[in-house]
């Protein structure tokens, strides 16, 4: 049986944020709203990565100060692997947003609306 402690409160908040975004991406009718939800879902997942790599106590950023012993550094710095994943994921998420914007503008030019319900009616 798993019981949440105070140290795991960030996980719970991020989970609520992600589930709201998933709801909007699935059930909202407006395409623009769906795109915003997908963008915020990226943020929530990035937060999950960084929270997981955090280290309690006297931790420092993953940049070694001059003159510090590497084994000391490895025992107090936060996880650089999570940072690496997030740095690339943010830029890829932005490229995704640009592509979706292009698709939405194209849809609006073609159908005259971006509501999925109306597009369904137009198709008959």
């Amino acid at each position, binding site marked *: 049986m798993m019981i949440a402690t105070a140290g795991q409160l960030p996980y719970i908040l991020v989970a609520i*944020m992600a589930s709201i975004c998933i709801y909007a991406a699935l059930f909202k009718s407006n395409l623009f709203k769906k795109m915003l939800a997908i963008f915020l879902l990226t943020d929530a997942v990035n937060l999950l990565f960084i929270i997981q790599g955090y280290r309690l106590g006297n931790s420092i950023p993953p940049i070694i100060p001059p003159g510090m012993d590497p084994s000391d550094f490895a025992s107090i710095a936060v996880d650089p692997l999570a940072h690496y994943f997030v740095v690339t994921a943010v830029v890829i998420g932005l490229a995704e947003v640009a592509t979706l914007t292009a698709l939405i503008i194209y849809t609006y030019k073609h159908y005259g609306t971006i509501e999925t319900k109306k597009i369904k009616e137009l198709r008959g």
Partner: protein
Amino acid sequence: MIATIELVIDLLLAFCVVLTAAIVFTKDLLLAVVLAGAEGVLVATVFYLLLAPDIALVQVAAGVGISTAFFIVGLRKIGRREE
């Protein structure tokens, strides 16, 4: 000091949840874009407090600088109101 920073992180994340709900349920798309920018700033602050300076830089640039520009260009072409 450490416990204080954890408390601040929890508060900021709770505010992020409120902003997400507001973005999803508002009818005004321009308001949704502005609130998304605010959420980008808050998420960047959380990254800073979690000792990730590299990501705080790229997150502010992405969340406020570039994504808002794309959203606004899209809004200018498709109209502001959601049905």
